[in-house]
């Protein structure tokens, strides 16, 4: 059940320049799937709309959730100043999340680019805690793309499997993007879970189609309501969508995660 509710800031720190790591105590943490997101409302009344931010992690007690976000405008700039004890309005839990069951017992790529890295933390945690049929282990390889040596969350992902890094400036790992890192390290997988900028997701869609493997990609778009009413955040789909019977799925409710073959990006 979606709701608008209060979150209480537990802690906040800057992970990398303009990248913030915020833990919030909230009842929304009770039932979260990896890849879902929350709407965070700025307090400044000139900024009205909830900011959609993916959930990076949920604590073990399911009483708090963590968001890792980049300052992208006025709202996120305000969030970056929040101190422990402050309250914030949240809308959630939103979106469908990653289909974890599709990865169990398989060789899985987790691919994140820039501010698309954070949701991979909770996904890695959940995937690694479960096995597939007949107890087959899930083998996780994370391939993360960053601009430079500010490789936030890399250490945390290493707890769940090997991590390969690509950097635009070549300062760490493969110089180039996540696809270059796959080629350079001759990596193979049965299924891909990804979140990142559109050019990266397009490349992953093409790669997955060539390899004949499924890729579950998390999309981003400007949103207003976050709950599927305003039709602001749509993506072109191969099949007719169930809501408007055109070829436009709602990213906020039908997504943000789509099987790459279903969407035309």
């Amino acid at each position: 059940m979606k709701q608008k509710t209060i979150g209480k800031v537990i802690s906040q720190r800057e992970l990398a320049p303009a990248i913030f790591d915020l833990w919030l105590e909230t009842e929304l943490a009770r039932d979260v799937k990896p890849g879902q997101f929350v709407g965070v409302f700025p307090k400044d009344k000139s900024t009205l709309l909830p900011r959609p931010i993916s959930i990076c992690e949920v604590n073990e007690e399911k009483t708090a959730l963590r968001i890792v976000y980049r300052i992208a405008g006025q709202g996120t700039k305000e969030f970056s100043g929040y101190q422990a004890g402050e309250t914030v309005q949240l809308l959630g839990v939103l979106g469908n999340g990653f289909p974890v069951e599709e990865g169990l017992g398989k060789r899985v790529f987790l691919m994140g680019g820039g501010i698309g890295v954070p949701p991979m933390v909770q996904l890695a945690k959940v995937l690694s805690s479960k096995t597939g049929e007949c107890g087959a282990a899930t083998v996780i390889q994370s391939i993360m793309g960053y601009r430079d040596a500010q490789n936030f969350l890399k250490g945390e992902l290493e707890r769940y499997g090997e991590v390969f890094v690509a950097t635009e400036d070549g300062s760490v790992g493969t110089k180039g993007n996540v696809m270059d890192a796959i080629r350079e390290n001759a990596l193979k997988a049965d299924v891909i879970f990804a979140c990142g900028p559109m050019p990266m997701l397009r490349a992953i869609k093409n790669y997955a189609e060539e390899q004949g493997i499924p890729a579950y990609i998390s999309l981003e778009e400007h949103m207003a309501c976050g709950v599927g009413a305003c039709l602001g955040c749509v993506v072109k789909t191969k099949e007719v969508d169930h809501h408007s019977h055109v070829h436009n799925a709602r990213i906020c409710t039908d997504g943000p995660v789509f099987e790459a073959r279903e969407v035309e990006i």
Partner: protein
Amino acid sequence: MSLENKILSSQSDAGEAWMPDLRTSIAGVEFQNPVMTASGTFGSGMEYGEFVDLNRLGAVVTKGVANIPWPGNPTPRVTEVYGGMLNAIGLQNPGIDVFMERDIPFLKQYDKTKIIVNVCGKSVQDYVDVVERLGEEPAVALLEINVSCPNVKEGAIAFGQKADALYNITAELKKHARQPIMMKLSPNVTDITEMARAAEAAGADALSLINTITGMKIDIHRRRFAIANKTGGMSGPAIKPIAIRMVWQVAQAVKLPILGMGGIATAEDAIEFLLAGASAISVGAMNFVNPYATVEILEGIEAYMRQYKVEKLTDLIGAVR
């Protein structure tokens, strides 16, 4: 103070509970209260039914529906502006067939809440087709005719910015409609009262206003338009004074009942619209900010009526002096 009001106030002074009469009507359709939803911000109620009891609303005004499915505009379709937002959705909708099979039965479950369907089209015939289909469904109480969407190239606003075009489409739809028709007026005109008079002269049963105000935002970092359509319709609290002014002007100019909207965020805002001359009000963009806004506004109107010992909501309509 009338005798009735004196009795009422003495009762409440004695601490006895009394219920303000929140009922209102538009074109002969009676509503349990004046709180409705602005078309396009509330779908057909399914999404917000998770947050509010739809049976508490005066009416759900649906997203615009055309004769066939419309895909809408490219993205980005929405962006925030100071105290509001711009949208250029482009009236994405599933068309009247799906709407009749899925959305109407859903809304019929909420028998206390009236159904108002927003109708859009590219040609007069498109509108006629939808209006005739809706005529088959007695559960639809009222039709809101969208002649003011600023975000589609053909139809819609083309009928709402010229008085003669508005007159013609209103007169034509009146011939085909079984339900009363409410023309939704655009604020993007020089004189909105001229449009209101044209609709009234053509036989419209009611008016709703305002639709969004055309605006633009440029992303200076990317040097691109913030929304793909370049222009979009502005809504949100920042437009409220314009909407109040227009509701008041139109209320002075014509006798038709008015559904007022434009930036309503609180009960106080809603009461301003009623005092300016609206018979009912719609909550739009604020649903996105506060999904409980409709019911909170309803409760706030009721509290205001108790505070000022207003017996009937209809006593507030146009009561500004």
